[in-house]
């Protein structure tokens, strides 16, 4: 009987799909399976592509192709004079998805906003720890608990964020994927039914696409949400075809099995560009690959030694060998040139192996640990390769580098432990287009033990980044971050490697796709030529 029912329901679905033969379909070949569909608990770009950017909206949204913030589920917002209250005026008439597993009885309102944030900071909220040991990592990583005192409903269409201190990047933070707005009505219904975990496997949002089906490790299917508050999008059926092997993904694009793909091999870029059926978009990424020196342990505790180690490396040659011609820009600052407050006046350490050898010999530096891992990142296609090249450059100045190799997850945990020593290769992709997201997150003293792999604590730098966060005047913020760059340049807590270019190859029939500096793959503004 159950089988019969399944067959009949499914036949109906097949009939429906067959009937919509003229529906516009877009197939995106993604690089990994999503862990689940709750953006609050995710940290990977792949997860966000599959959930936050298709199914959900946020109070404010990043503009397509840029990092400026525009109205989302909030139409307007204002900050109080003392900077401690951020009030959002919510959009009316926004609908949630209606699916086979949920029918909403009301529109989006302030209750949904309050729920979406309270579940992340209130320990007694039924959704605070609803997925075993999984936590709201991004909420913590963006230091939200320290800055947000509480989120308060003023009335059905007004929400107030009460802060502990002024925080200029806060609005940009609320455009990030972890701040996606969930349906409180749906969440309550799931708790009542005893199946709260369904929030992460059968999601409901207000976004341009609604969830249809996920076949584990194979495909994710979405359908355009007809009542989307911005108007129904052009694509009717969106399919993510999960293809982890990069070569296979490229072959699928070439064979026409997918229309657009993520993260091609650097070696394939030239041939993809030459293909008459394909279009390859590119943009400098909001990212940085670097090598953090342990500033608390000899021999890298002296700035002189760090500068010497930097001078021994032929940076342009390294970048060329690692990324291929034209695929990356050698870095002299932590933030990329496309970001506001970038200081072009900074002068990088020159390539001077003779002088480097002299300084290193004078300081008795003969050996150093050099850390590398296995994961391919947008800011470094091969840690092992860059380690080998740097090892050679350092050998030429009399310093033997011992390569410490480790699996990616363990790497990031062990690399942050006190007493690590040596040079640690890592990188970063920006979250919200704000310089604080680079400087404070990666080199601020508060991040020692987590992301501050240089264990760096410099009072001048700390003062600069503090000013950057508290000031709301852009001129003053820019001055603060210029100062931060000057201090970093003088003290050299790291070897800054490169900002890589992000490529997105697609079939020429895909129209309107915009490259995203935050490396998001968004399809709400995409159309497909017939």
């Amino acid at each position, binding site marked *: 009987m159950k*089988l019969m029912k*399944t*067959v009949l*329901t*499914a*036949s109906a*679905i*097949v009939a429906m*799909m067959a009937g919509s033969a003229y529906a516009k*379909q877009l*197939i995106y070949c993604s690089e990994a*399976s999503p*862990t*689940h569909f709750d953006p609050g608990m995710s940290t990977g770009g792949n997860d966000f592509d599959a959930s936050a950017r298709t199914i959900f909206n946020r109070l404010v949204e990043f503009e397509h192709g840029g990092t400026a913030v525009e109205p989302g589920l909030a139409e307007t917002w204002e900050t109080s004079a003392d900077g401690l209250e951020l009030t959002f005026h919510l959009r009316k008439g926004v609908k949630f998805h209606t699916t086979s597993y949920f029918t909403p009885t009301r529109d989006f309102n302030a209750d949904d906003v309050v729920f979406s944030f309270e579940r992340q900071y209130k320990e007694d909220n039924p959704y605070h720890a609803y*997925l*075993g*040991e*999984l*936590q709201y*990592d991004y909420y913590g990583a963006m230091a939200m608990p320290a800055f947000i005192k509480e989120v308060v409903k003023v009335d059905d269409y007004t929400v107030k964020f009460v802060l502990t201190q002024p925080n200029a990047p806060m609005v940009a933070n609320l455009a990030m994927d972890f701040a996606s707005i969930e349906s409180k009505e749906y969440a309550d219904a799931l708790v009542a039914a005893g199946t709260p*975990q369904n929030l*992460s*496997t059968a999601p409901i949002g207000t976004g341009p696409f609604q969830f249809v*089906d996920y*076949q*584990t*490790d*194979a*495909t994710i*299917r979405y359908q355009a949400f007809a009542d989307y508050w911005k108007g129904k999008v052009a694509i009717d059926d969106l*399919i993510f*075809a*999960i*293809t*982890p*092997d990069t*070569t*296979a993904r490229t*072959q*699928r694009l*070439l*064979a026409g*099995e997918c229309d657009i793909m993520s993260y091609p091999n650097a070696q394939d870029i030239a041939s993809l560009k030459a293909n008459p059926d394909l279009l390859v978009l590119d943009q400098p990424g909001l990212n940085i690959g670097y090598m953090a020196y342990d500033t608390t342990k000899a021999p890298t505790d002296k700035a002189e030694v760090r500068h010497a180690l930097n001078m021994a490396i032929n940076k342009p040659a390294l970048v060329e060998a690692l990324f291929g011609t034209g695929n990356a820009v050698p870095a002299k600052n932590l933030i990329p040139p496309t970001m506001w407050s970038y200081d072009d006046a900074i002068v990088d350490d020159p390539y001077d192996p003779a002088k480097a050898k002299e300084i290193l010999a004078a300081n008795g530096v003969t050996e150093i640990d050099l850390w590398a891992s296995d994961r391919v990142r947008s800011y470094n296609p091969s840690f092992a390769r860059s380690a080998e090249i740097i090892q050679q450059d350092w050998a030429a100045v009399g310093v033997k580098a011992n390569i410490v190799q480790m*699996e*990616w*997850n*363990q790497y*990031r*945990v062990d690399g942050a432990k006190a007493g690590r020593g040596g040079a640690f290769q890592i990188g970063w992709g920006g979250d919200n287009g704000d310089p604080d997201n680079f400087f404070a997150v990666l080199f601020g003293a508060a991040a020692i033990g987590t992301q501050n792999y240089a264990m760096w604590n410099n009072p001048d730098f700390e003062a600069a980044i503090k000013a950057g966060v508290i000031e709301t005047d852009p001129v003053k913020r820019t001055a603060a971050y210029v100062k931060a760059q000057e201090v970093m340049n003088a003290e050299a807590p790291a070897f800054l490697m490169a900002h890589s270019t992000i490529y997105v190859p697609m079939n020429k029939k895909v129209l309107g796709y915009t490259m995203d500096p935050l490396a998001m793959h968004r399809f709400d503004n995409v159309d497909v030529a017939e």
Partner: protein
Amino acid sequence: MLQFLLRRLALIVPTLIGITICTFGFVRLIPVDPILAMAGERGVTAKRYAELVIKYGFDRPIWDQYFIYLGQLLRGDFGHSIVSHRAVVLDFVTLFPATLELSFFALIFAIVIGIPVGIIAAVRRGTWLDQGLMGTALVGYSMPIFWWGLLLIIFFSTTLGWTPVSGRIALNFFFKPVTGIMTIDSLIYGNWPAFFSALRHLILPSIVLGTIPLAVIARQTRSAMLEVMGEDYVRTARAKGLKESRVVSLHALRNALIPVVTTIGLQVGVLMGGAILTETIFSWPGVGRWMVESIFKRDYSVVQSGLLLIAVIVMVINLFVDILYGAINPRIRAN
């Protein structure tokens, strides 16, 4: 036969116990605090740590811990992924049919081509045909699967366009799985285009996965045939004036197949666990790929329980092969 069967069934219990001891010991052997391993690298608060110690019984003696683990397994609790919090059994049941379908077609390919190749090589022993076939088998056995798979994709899929690149079925077919086996499900829905699409998608992965078993089966068939064809009763059959083809197919092959069946049984175990590379190249959503990705993600719950489930399946399959062997081997059947 009955005695053989009973003896064989009785072996299941110690085998299962051995498997559970291995998977139990796995988490305790890796160089990470097992509680942190169970919780994932996010780290846990001191309070939660204490709770987990009690839940997994790490404060108890090792035998107590083993019995707690066995108790959980017997209750059907195979744990949750520490990355997605989905039940391990749920993922396994969803993904296993894909591996089963692929392994089945790979085995059919290996048997349908491998056995005739072995027979021909044996019958034409010493000729260029024999050398050529066995040489090709050796090449097949030695080839890196990844390279072979990508080569086939680039040639047949991208350049010639004869076969799809990857996946289980064309993306415009969408139906809720019934058995999880695409070919069967499409027939259940009566969707012939979907059925043929699923078959087309099976061609390259089956060839790639089946290449090594094919080589092994071919060589094993050849040696078994050679051995049997040297036996007295075969000489007698020829002396009786029987046609050579009848001698080979009726008298020699039936007996030669006995050791080949055992080989095939072993190959099934290899296929189950070894589809990893093939599944990765062809984006085939099976348990091989699932296990490997879980290892990279340090998802110890999945690795531990996935290991157990796969081992049980391989054990069951080997049991069937042993029973089949007992049924076709007249020496055992007669008892």
